């Protein structure tokens, strides 16, 4: 369902994503893991058509990302890194806008909007302008916008950050159930425990390069240990001045 070969993105002399090659099957939940600046968001941006690659190829839902940008947008749902919300629209208006633009009927749009507002505990804040929403509400609104058109592939950039535990659980259950119905989920996360619970494919990247892909090499130890071994090790330096010599 998602496939890329030698996908590369350079910004001047800096290579953010370096010859990335991966395959994600239909109905899989793939977690892309890595430290800040590893190239996770750049990868998502290239796969969703937000950023053209410097070289390489990517196909999503059977379509070449570079050649079919409009058709791809109709088939995917995206929770972008910056959430992509308009300050001058309310939570509910964002969902109504999404439904109509993706070609749903007014009735279907209203029905799905009501359900999503209820399920994601957004009903009370439905009339709040996005510019006045909390981080969590904004993320839930963007998540609801990704789900509303019933996409074939979901791209979620750090979906669980700044979300309360209950919504996190609801999102987890929703993603598991949509994946069971054949929707492919591609997510990035820093919350390793959540990624381990939800995903069935893991890809770790560092410096724009894949250092481990679970579809090629089996998980031999807990995900967190694997991450610290392969991607980054915690700093061992002691800040000796902390807690000492206070007057």
């Amino acid at each position: 369902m998602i496939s890329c070969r030698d996908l590369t993105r350079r910004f001047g002399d800096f290579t953010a994503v370096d010859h990335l090659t991966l395959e994600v099957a239909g109905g899989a939940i793939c977690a892309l893991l890595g430290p800040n600046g590893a190239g996770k968001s750049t990868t998502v941006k290239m796969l969703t058509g937000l950023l053209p690659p410097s070289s390489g190829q990517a196909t999503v839902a059977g379509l070449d990302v570079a050649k079919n940008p409009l058709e791809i947008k109709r088939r995917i749902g995206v929770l972008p890194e910056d959430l992509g919300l308009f300050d001058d629209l309310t939570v509910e208006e964002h969902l109504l806008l999404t439904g109509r633009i993706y070609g749903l009927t007014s009735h279907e749009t209203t029905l799905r909007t009501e359900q999503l507002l209820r399920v994601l505990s957004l009903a009370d804040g439905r009339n709040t302008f996005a510019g006045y929403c909390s981080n969590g509400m904004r993320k839930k609104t963007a998540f609801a916008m990704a789900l509303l058109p019933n996409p074939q592939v979901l791209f979620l950039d750090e979906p669980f950050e700044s979300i309360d535990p209950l919504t996190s659980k609801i999102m987890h259950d929703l993603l598991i159930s949509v994946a069971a119905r054949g929707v492919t989920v591609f997510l990035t996360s820093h919350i390793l425990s959540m990624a381990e619970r939800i995903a069935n494919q893991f890809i770790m990247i560092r410096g724009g390069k894949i250092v481990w892909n679970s579809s090629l090499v089996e998980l031999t130890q807990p995900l967190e240990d694997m991450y610290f071994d392969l991607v980054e090790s915690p700093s061992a330096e002691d800040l000796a001045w902390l807690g000492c010599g206070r007057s």
Partner: protein
Amino acid sequence: MARLRAILGALFTAFRRDTKSLGSFASNNFFLMSLLFLRQAGVFVYLIVGLVMFFPLSTDPLRKIPPVRLALWPLSPRERRLLRIASPWLNPLTWILAALAVWAASGKVTVALWAAIAAVFTLGFVAPSLPLAPSKELWRRIPNLPGPLNHLIRKNLRELLSTLDFYAALILSVTVLVSRVAGRRLPQEALLPITVLIVLALSSYAQSLFGLDGPAALTRYHLLPVRGWQVLAAKDAAFLLAAFVLTLPLAPLLGLAGALAALAVGHAPSVNRRREQTRWRFSSGASFGNGLGQLVLMAGAAGLVQANPLFLLPLLAGYLGSTWWYGLVIERGRLDS
């Protein structure tokens, strides 16, 4: 005192860097037109210049520090009071206002003019702290429009309503309306220039259509399965709607012609050179050339349509061509660069 010095030093650096608002008045069409054509108007033109110039500059430097951060810093109540008193003096306008006060006392500037400028300055200083929720409530009531772009157009209307350009045009429009309701006959030859003046007051916004959209909104435009021309058309629809309504007391067809011309010229700078705009400020245009181009084309288009309404057709064709072309430019990702 070392703490205060450090904070004031950081504030000064931040305030000095934020020079964007300094340029906002210099390329506003209404301001340029005021300078070019109303030089003979005396105090009136000074007040317009004062309003356009002083309002964008009159910001509280202390607002550069996020309130939560300021509250968390270990400052004594005395230090906080001192900071409150000292920080406005980082804004050069405070010094200008003080100098004007001295001149007013010595009779070199009229007290009324000083009071007017001081009022504008104070309003700009405290406006961001005032609760704006009621106006947001009002904006919620913008009626729904037919079609899938309904909510995008409503959003764009809300953006336009948060610029001072709209209110400058509104004041002109309401003045004409009141005059007409009072039974005063407007000379036929005044119809065209006043209509163009109203559209002119809005026209700088047409050069910065995406100026109030943050980076997140630009991401969303690229994610929505719509063509670039549709994104642009949603922007234009809000502008045309506002121009049409505001010119209703005069000659709406001429207003529409002027607005179409303003948009046709404004698409290029809006898409190719997106400049961030600030709410509750006048929009800044791209350049003097663009402003002049808009003015000449708006006046020409409105004049031609006044002579023969059929001229609206080629004007519409030109506008549609511009929308289509710059829609393609949006699809190529030009807005983000």
